[in-house]
């Protein structure tokens, strides 16, 4: 589709009076409100329903997705999104349920929340989860607020002022810490790509509030000294936080609770097959060890002694609510459906196959790409295009764009920051050996072309509806909205 014509904006098409009419004749607004309260004009475009259908269908056709192709975006767990989840969430009993519905007329919904809470606690070894936070970063924020409340209660609020974050951590970790007023101490990884335990021990002190980690880390490596780490942090009086972004590698194999983590979040839109929707909505439940249960954000779904389900708001030590209403409930339904579809054994197998798929690609690409950490990985791994860049000038970015030309989504690039020209690949368990082979062959061919005709790769993509975009212009002269012509 190269050079496909731009699709006009919905504001540029349409004519007044063309909109399909969905409501009965309205009433003059000034029948009910004083003129001073009313807006003067409402300059919105009017398109027929067919125009709207064609417009958004064409936009959809210009959007890469899991449904259209392989999406090995590291750290994002782009697995297949089963359609049973959608059907379950769309049932009127869930879809049309008002958040202020009386509890006894919403028992099915609260039971769904409760059962998901229990399942997550079991899979990750935590005492209790709150489904309140709306996304992973939101869960991190909630957990750090818990840490702050906990230390305040202990009388160490002023003293515990720093959060330790390894240099391989997701950017949300330090950003969340800053939103709670914590100072961030960055920790260098060791030669094996793990947290340097000796350096951690020097960083620890009476000012340490929390150490935030993910395991496996963003290099796809299991932090094998994890018990030593959690013990050291606890000995210093600090708390351990588990970033659940990489939980797809762990299920049935190891549990953050057993590793000594006190607080954690999960991204239901990664591990639990909720559609990413173009960047959300996600869901970021947080789980805690027993001594932090009272601090969880409200509400928490509970089962009373008489077997009735309710939302518990009466938690005086709670950090409070994190968002308007109780949870991203439609995602709760999807996640529970997914867990029940797979069962405990299935979840275990999911993690095993996610690791198998990642290693299968890793071993194959070793032939032609550097893999700086040459050992079995977990659900993802990192490669580096540094040697290629030195040799040919072709960068990780160019490889990413060349993959787009070949029908694949690009891996995550330039993250984690510790690996130069980083290419981070996470295939997930729902991809077949044939798909992985196709991807490996595409990468191999790109590498060969990069050596024989580097310009060809630097010019990629050429088969997409647009070529490389002038990002400098986008940032220097921000055009963030359509403007009506005067």
């Amino acid at each position, binding site marked *: 589709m190269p050079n496909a014509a731009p699709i006009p904006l919905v504001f540029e098409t349409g004519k007044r009076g063309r909109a399909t009419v969905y409501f009965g004749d309205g009433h003059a607004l000034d029948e009910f409100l004083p003129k001073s309260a009313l807006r003067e004009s409402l300059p919105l475009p009017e398109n027929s329903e067919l125009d709207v259908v064609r417009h958004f269908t064409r936009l959809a056709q210009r959007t890469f997705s899991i449904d259209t192709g392989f999406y090995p975006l590291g750290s994002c767990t782009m697995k297949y999104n089963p359609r049973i989840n959608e059907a379950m969430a769309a049932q009127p009993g869930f879809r049309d349920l008002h958040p202020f519905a009386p509890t006894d007329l919403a028992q099915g919904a609260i039971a769904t929340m409760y059962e998901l809470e229990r399942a997550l606690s079991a899979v990750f070894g935590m005492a209790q989860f709150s489904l309140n936070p709306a996304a992973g970063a939101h869960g991190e924020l909630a957990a750090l607020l818990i840490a702050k409340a906990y230390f305040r209660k202990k009388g160490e609020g002023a003293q515990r002022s720093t959060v330790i974050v390894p240099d391989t951590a997701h950017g949300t970790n*330090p950003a969340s810490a800053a939103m709670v007023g914590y100072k961030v101490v960055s920790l260098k990884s060791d030669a094996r790509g793990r947290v340097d335990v000796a350096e951690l021990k020097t960083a620890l002190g009476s000012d340490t509030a929390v150490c935030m980690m993910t395991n496996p880390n963003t290099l796809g490596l299991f932090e094998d000294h*994890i018990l030593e780490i959690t013990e050291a942090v606890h000995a210093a009086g600090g708390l351990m936080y588990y970033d659940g972004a990489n939980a797809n590698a762990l299920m049935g194999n190891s549990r953050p609770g057993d590793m000594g983590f006190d607080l954690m979040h999960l991204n239901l839109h990664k591990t639990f097959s909720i559609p990413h929707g173009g960047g959300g909505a996600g869901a970021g439940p947080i789980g805690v060890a027993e001594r932090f249960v009272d601090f969880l954000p409200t509400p928490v779904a509970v089962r009373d002694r008489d077997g009735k389900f309710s939302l518990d708001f009466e938690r005086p030590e709670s950090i409070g609510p994190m968002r308007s209403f109780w949870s991203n409930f439609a995602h709760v339904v999807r996640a529970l459906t997914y867990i029940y579809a797979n069962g405990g054994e299935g979840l275990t197998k999911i993690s095993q196959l996610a690791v198998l798929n990642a290693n299968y690609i890793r071993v194959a690409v070793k032939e032609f790409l550097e893999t700086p950490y040459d050992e079995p990985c977990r659900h993802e791994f990192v490669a580096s295009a540094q040697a290629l860049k030195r040799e040919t000038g072709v960068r990780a970015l160019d490889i990413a764009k060349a993959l787009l030309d070949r029908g694949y989504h690009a891996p995550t690039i330039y993250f984690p920051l510790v690996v130069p020209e980083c290419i981070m690949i996470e295939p997930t368990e729902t991809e077949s050996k044939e798909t992985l082979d196709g991807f490996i062959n595409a990468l191999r061919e790109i590498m060969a072309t990069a050596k024989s005709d580097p310009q060809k790769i630097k010019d990629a993509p050429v088969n997409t509806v647009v070529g490389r975009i002038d990002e400098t212009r986008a940032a220097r002269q921000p055009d963030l909205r359509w403007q009506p012509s005067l």
Partner: protein
Amino acid sequence: MYSPHTEGDIKAMLAAVGAPSLEELIRVPDAVALKVPLDVPPALPEADLARKIAEYAARNTAATEYTSFLGAGAYRHYCPPVVMALAMRGEFLTAYTPYQAEVSQGYLQAIYEWQTYMCLLTGLDLANASVYDGATALAEGAIMAVNATGRSALLVSSAIHPNYRDVLRTYARGLDLDVDELPVAPDGTTDLSTLEARLADKRYAAVALQSPNFFGCVDTPHAREQEMFASTGTIPIAVVAEALSLAALVPPAAWGAQIAVGEAQSFGNPLNFGGPYVGFIACTKEHIRRIPGRLVGRSVDNRGNPAYVLTLQAREQHIRREKATSNICTNQAHCALVATIYLAALGETGLRRAAGLNLRQVNRLAERVCAVPGFSRAFAAPVFNELVVRVPSSTTTERVLAALRERKILGGLELAGWYPNLSDCLLMTATETTTDGQIDAFAAALGEIVRETKAAARA
């Protein structure tokens, strides 16, 4: 299990990676290895699973068997089926954040259209790609004001949705910000009589006002207050919990708001027992570097064609880390897409008609309910689609709601928990989905309940 691996595939792949078994490949140090099976029920075949989950849905009779007059930040509106038919296309549903712009032009354009819609509706210069919901939008908007002014206190109307204020306090505890409140005037709007005195020492980064406010009342400041904001360098923040009201009411920019935050669930997104919904933030251009979250911009590609791309990313957490404007990463793109398609389908006419019907139905509700002896409006200020009703002194809100439930009606929300002085009041909502017949039956039921109460008192 949704993995395509055959036994043969697994064997071949294990051989390729040189691992004897899946268990060996994924082995972790013994001390942290889970040695028991996961305590999760065994897998259910899909046909059985569908039945099981359907049973959970069926137990939520509030959604399916009751006439509801609930609103309070979550609204039932009619959404033309074309909206979901388009939004649920796999390309939209299963894409992620459009990092690779060349293969994400469709979604990027849709977000650019969303940003434009929110600008047109609020009257402000720019809008972001969405945040989690209305409450977090308020918190993020408040942080923008704090960063813009260097001040660390916020003044908010107590007629802002109580859940929004609670969330603001949650965030404020993290950043050690003070949150003070303005009281409610007798007509149901925010009491601004003390504003001048309170702003005098220039302590407040922002003043936040919600319109329509939690009581349904149109609640915007006048020219006098606008001057006070300007002369004290206080940033006015408009809070909009019912986005449909933007189709009718004076837009935030027109009354001087520099930042508008709110909830756009009403634009095509279902109730979903509280989420996911979709928060928005719009602002004047001087706040462009402080707005949190994704922004889509229009630029050109190397072939000279217009092209869309995520921009101003250096504000964001993945680059700026602890110095970012916010920690937000995932937003509510798909809910914003639903809203965009809804707005595109309705157009000006549809949106105005919907707003007009909300006004008509809430006024009919007010008229019919307050014709029942003992029921009266608590506040005189004009409303958009909900209002506060005082129940007769002979009974209580609890008894009224219980009696209504026997008649399969959810009669509104009790306010006592948030506003002790409104303990005899209910917040009732009517939208275009509320029929005349439902309103008349509601009023008739209230009449019956009053008569029963009187009879019981005599007996």
